[in-house]
């Protein structure tokens, strides 16, 4: 297909965290995005979660801003409550037919006020709360839903017409056709359809759906959620009692040969640990017991979480346990479990049992595969290759998130950015062609003008008007100082009111606008846009929240609510009179990237950025590209990566946009997002707009188990090399896991070693069936589809012996021979082995160079020395400092496909910076008054974003300056500043104090607002 026929738009299927991330990255990089979601709201499974591991972050708190950002992005069109019907065409140009399932509510008219649901007399099944609480026949799945549009469930609705009567927006329309088709044209498709949770009731022996006190993990998660059906109270469904003992059964519908799901679902061990910890926080004295086969805490800082759960929270952890059945006591509804504890069979009774149900492919996966002509793997997930982890088997179609295999949120989000990076490269020539850039009129010059404030008070149908006396509030508002106009609206947010507000701004020459209605969290951008369209700076807008924080919470006290509404309006007007127009400076961007590290991740990232059309400088300290991949001879699936490595190196070296700097390092970095200036050790100076850190990690040089002292003690990489070269010759091999991992010094798991041990053990068994292989382990952590290798290794006769870290294997040299003693945990016997080789699975340790780079770039490291991303869940490849990104082993240990996904992700994130001619800084930033600043550097010390920098402006005179492009406007520095030299714009002290004064003033306007 000729480049000019490509379509600069993409379809993203699935609106969970992965789909949203892919959509946002593409939209930010200059592509039009259609985000298709089958349910009425975006958010995916994450919206149902209470907390997230390993930080115990509130899931909705971190998800909600992302929902809002996706929902209001000018280049993203949300198509919710809809499904894919047909796809034709090829990479670069697809014709897509979508079927929308009607909501029976006119989307343009619905304001999301919720009056319909409040009055709906019908209650029925609630899939969001897993039926633990009923839902109305007209509903939104959850209060923070995006788009906030109600849907009538025609299966439940009796057509009584009550909602229609109450809907003052006139949005209800029962007579719509139930579906409508539409077609769109896109250049690429990203599949982010996610997964489904295994139906725990299918494991009959566990009694889910029969015994009331046996709940699934997702039901328990809803129970823990403060906004869930039990408001965060952990209670026994049978009698409402608070449980004192809860058991967690792992691997329900995972690693289970009785089901099609023999793979590991990857996230459930951590999710269950989190649930146990959070439940113990909710219920003082609660005892939790977890039945694991293995604890699979393989991710970044997961092992530390496991350790804390066990030691600080007292979560009881029992390994080697596959619970066979749950029995219920008829008298008490308690649940009886038999299990293995220290090699003995025990029986114990619990108040509640939580089943950690695993992931399964989504129901529509096969149909989707057929429609798109892509392959599914044997489990029914989307097939990908280890070396191209975001490509489907058909060109122009990419995959991310759990649809390509069970994975946790950060891995899904990284893969999503990676898929976006691939699309950006495919459609590079079409960048910016289909996106709309909104043009606003020039801002009016308000200099010297007194405040002329217009106040719009919203009835919100009856949401506000039925409690608060809106006309009275409006009348009161008009009496406040500075207010020259006030009116009341049925819905201030409606299209026609927006038009009217603009006319009134003109007519009355308003220079500030206050809207008293709902919450600024959802509606401020809408009104800011309106005032901007009328030529006012968007920061001349202020909101009073008289619905969510007034009429809704004081429904029985109309007088008090009216008084409060007046106070809130008075506070907003007082602040409004002190608002100033804030410039959003345009910071030019140098369209080039610096990639530090020339291993697999660095090269992949560099190449993808170059393909998207930007210049790249790739800096490698070694004299050759390739990094660790040079020491790997076989991937998990048995593919030799050397050919891929050779062609990748060639492509990187020959790409006209990539300049490779070998045997060079970064010496100095100045500047900030869009405008970095880096000096290399060779003296070369580079100007660039973004940075990717891909400095990799190192393989541990063991000091234990006679490594380096006995020729028969080797590392896993040495074994790989021997197997590849054909030098391998042994009758017996012992592999010891966790060498240099999961200890006091390096508390975390190295993630890759179990899977690589299994791949090597398999290779030995397949090529030398007579060779005996013993794997000495603590937990086997072959997560995801690598579990298949574990099963296969066991089938081929590899022996697995579990040891306790308290009594590790003892290795003795007896001349040329080796003797190994192990205290086997499961059978509780001492076993002596005399192998020809002892293979140590050495840990992945952080690159010791990280420390210097961390100082140069002012980026953080975690306790172990890996780099620390901006947010462990939703920003896995970003640093808190804008314009700097992270991928590969520099982030944490990971497998090849995961490194590639992250490298592509870092490229996509770089694209979001470099695709813009300039970056529009936020207006809400802090500024330093140089006259007051004494250059103490306190602000520089406490800012996590590196925004304030103390500079010597003249000899001996130091002043802090805040880089607008980096400042997030949190205002913390202003409070820390000992000379009060820092002014956080829009949240200035005088603005906040005037609100305090107004809040505490009497109602009579004459007596308040001292200026």
């Amino acid at each position: 297909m000729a480049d000019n026929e490509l379509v600069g738009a993409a379809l993203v299927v699935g609106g969970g965290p992965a789909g949203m991330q892919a959509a946002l990255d593409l939209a930010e990089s200059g592509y039009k995005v259609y985000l298709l979601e089958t349910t009425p709201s975006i958010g995916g499974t994450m919206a149902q979660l209470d907390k997230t591991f390993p930080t115990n972050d509130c899931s909705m708190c971190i998800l909600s801003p992302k929902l809002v950002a996706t929902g209001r992005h000018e280049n993203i069109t949300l198509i919710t409550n809809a499904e894919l019907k047909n796809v034709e065409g090829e990479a670069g140009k697809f014709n897509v037919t979508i079927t929308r399932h009607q909501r029976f509510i006119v989307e343009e008219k619905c304001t999301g006020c919720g009056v319909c649901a409040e009055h709906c007399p019908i209650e029925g099944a609630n899939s969001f709360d897993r039926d633990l609480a009923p839902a109305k026949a007209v509903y939104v799945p959850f209060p923070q839903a995006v788009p906030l549009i109600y849907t009538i469930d025609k299966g439940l609705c009796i057509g009584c017409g009550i909602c229609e009567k109450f809907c003052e927006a006139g949005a209800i329309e029962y007579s719509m056709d139930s579906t409508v088709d539409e077609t769109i044209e896109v250049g690429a498709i990203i599949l982010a359809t996610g997964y489904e949770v295994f139906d725990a009731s299918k494991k009959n022996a566990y009694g889910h759906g029969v015994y009331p006190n046996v709940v699934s993990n997702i039901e328990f998660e809803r129970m823990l959620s403060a906004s869930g059906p039990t408001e965060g109270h952990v209670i026994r469904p049978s009698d409402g009692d608070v449980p004192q003992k809860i058991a967690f059964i792992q691997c329900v519908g995972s690693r289970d040969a009785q089901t099609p799901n023999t793979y590991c679902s990857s996230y459930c061990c951590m999710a269950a640990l989190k649930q146990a910890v959070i439940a113990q926080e909710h219920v003082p004295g609660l005892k939790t017991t977890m039945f694991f086969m293995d604890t699979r805490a393989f991710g970044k800082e997961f092992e530390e979480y496991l350790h804390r759960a066990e030691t600080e929270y007292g979560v009881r952890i029992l390994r080697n346990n596959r619970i066979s059945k749950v029995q219920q006591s008829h008298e008490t509804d308690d649940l009886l479990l038999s299990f293995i504890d220290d090699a003995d069979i025990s029986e114990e009774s619990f108040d509640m049992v939580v089943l950690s149900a695993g992931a399964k492919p989504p129901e529509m996966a096969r149909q989707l595969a057929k429609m798109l002509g892509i392959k599914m793997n044997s489990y029914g997930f989307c097939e990908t290759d280890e070396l191209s982890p975001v490509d489907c088997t058909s060109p122009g179609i990419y995959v991310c998130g759990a649809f390509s295999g069970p994975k946790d949120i950060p891995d899904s989000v990284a893969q999503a950015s990676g898929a976006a990076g691939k699309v950006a490269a495919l459609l590079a020539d079409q960048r910016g062609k289909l996106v709309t850039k909104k043009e606003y009129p020039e801002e009016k010059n308000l200099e010297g003008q007194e405040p002329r404030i217009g106040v719009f008070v919203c009835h919100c149908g009856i949401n506000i008007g039925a409690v608060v006396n809106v006309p009275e509030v409006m009348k009161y508002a008009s009496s406040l100082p500075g207010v020259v106009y006030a009116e009341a609206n049925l819905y201030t947010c409606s299209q026609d009111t927006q038009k009217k507000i603009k006319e009134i701004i003109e007519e009355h020459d308003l220079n500030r606008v206050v809207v008293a209605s709902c919450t600024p969290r959802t509606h401020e951008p809408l009104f800011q846009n309106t005032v901007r369209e009328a030529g006012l700076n968007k920061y001349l807008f202020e909101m009073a929240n008289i619905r969510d924080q007034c009429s809704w919470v004081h429904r029985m006290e109309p007088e008090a609510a009216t008084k409060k509404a007046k106070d809130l309006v008075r506070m907003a007007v007082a602040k409004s009179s002190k608002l100033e127009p804030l410039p959003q400076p345009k910071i030019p961007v140098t369209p080039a990237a610096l990639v530090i590290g020339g291993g697999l991740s660095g090269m992949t990232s560099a190449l993808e950025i170059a393909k998207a059309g930007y210049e790249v400088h790739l800096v490698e300290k070694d004299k050759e590209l390739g990094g660790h991949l040079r020491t790997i001879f076989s991937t998990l699936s048995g593919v030799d990566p050397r050919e891929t490595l050779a062609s990748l190196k060639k492509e990187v070296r020959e790409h006209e946009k990539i300049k490779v700097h070998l045997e060079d390092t970064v010496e100095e970095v100045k500047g900030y997002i869009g405008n970095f200036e880096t000096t290399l050790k060779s003296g070369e100076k580079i100007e660039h707009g973004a940075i990717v850190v891909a400095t990799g990690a190192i393989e541990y040089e063991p000091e234990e188990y006679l490594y380096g002292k006995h020729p028969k003690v080797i590392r896993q990489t040495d074994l790989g090399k021997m197997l590849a070269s054909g030098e391998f010759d042994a009758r017996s091999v012992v592999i010891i896991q966790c060498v240099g991992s999961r200890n006091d010094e390096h508390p975390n798991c190295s993630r890759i070693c179990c899977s690589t041990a299994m791949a090597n053990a398999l290779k030995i068994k397949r090529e030398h069936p007579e060779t005996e292989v013993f794997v000495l382990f603590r937990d086997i952590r072959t997560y995801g589809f690598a579990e298949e290798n574990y099963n296969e290794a066991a089938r081929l006769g590899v022996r697995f012996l579990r040891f306790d870290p308290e009594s590790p294997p003892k290795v003795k040299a007896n001349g040329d021979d080796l003797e190994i003693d192990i205290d086997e945990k499961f059978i509780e016997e001492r076993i002596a082995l005399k192998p020809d080789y002892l293979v140590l699975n050495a840990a992945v340790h952080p690159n010791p160079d990280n420390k210097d780079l961390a100082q140069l770039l002012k980026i953080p490291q975690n306790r172990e020395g890996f780099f620390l991303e901006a947010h462990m869940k939703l920003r896995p490849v970003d640093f808190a400092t804008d314009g700097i990104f992270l991928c590969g082993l520099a982030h944490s240990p990971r497998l090849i496909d995961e490194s590639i996904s992250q490298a592509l992700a870092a490229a996509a994130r770089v694209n979001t910076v470099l695709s813009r001619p300039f970056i529009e800084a936020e207006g809400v930033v802090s500024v330093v008054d140089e006259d007051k600043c004494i250059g103490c550097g306190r602000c520089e010390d406490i800012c996590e974003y590196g925004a304030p920098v103390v500079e010597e402006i003249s000899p001996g005179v130091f002043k802090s300056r805040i880089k607008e492009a980096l400042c997030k406007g949190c205002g913390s520095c202003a409070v820390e500043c000992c000379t009060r030299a820092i002014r956080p714009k829009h949240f200035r002290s005088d603005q906040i104090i005037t609100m305090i004064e107004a809040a505490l003033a009497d109602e009579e306007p004459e007596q308040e607002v001292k200026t």
Partner: protein
Amino acid sequence: MEEGTNPEMEHPAFEPKIVAFCCNWCSYAGADLAGTTRLQYPANVRIIRVMCSGRVDPAFVLKAFSLGADGVIVAGCHPSDCHYINGNEKTAMRGIFLSEFLEDAGLEPQRFRVEWIAGSEGQKFADVVKKMVAELQTLGPIAEESA
């Protein structure tokens, strides 16, 4: 205006005035959620939105008390949840200092609270306000000497 704090009313129940500083990302969202889920709490609180609880200058708290607030709440994200990485840690430190200072100044400890309220904790927001209103009603207005 016709209703409100009428000094001529006979022994009205003491209605404390509470100023709450809420961070945009968690506790303001929590307060919104209390509304979305229609939880009811007394109408004594006036919320001032800040981007981060770390923006709340101890001077604002003192100002509120000096202007007649009977109680002040500073609410932020739970530890480790901060939208700005660790602004709430600064709030926590300042909160400790401020509590001690206010107590030294003769104010009852119930009059000032630092609370961590997540965006999903509408109930917690409502509970915090209810509890504080009840406590302040028991305490009554701030004694002249400490004001």
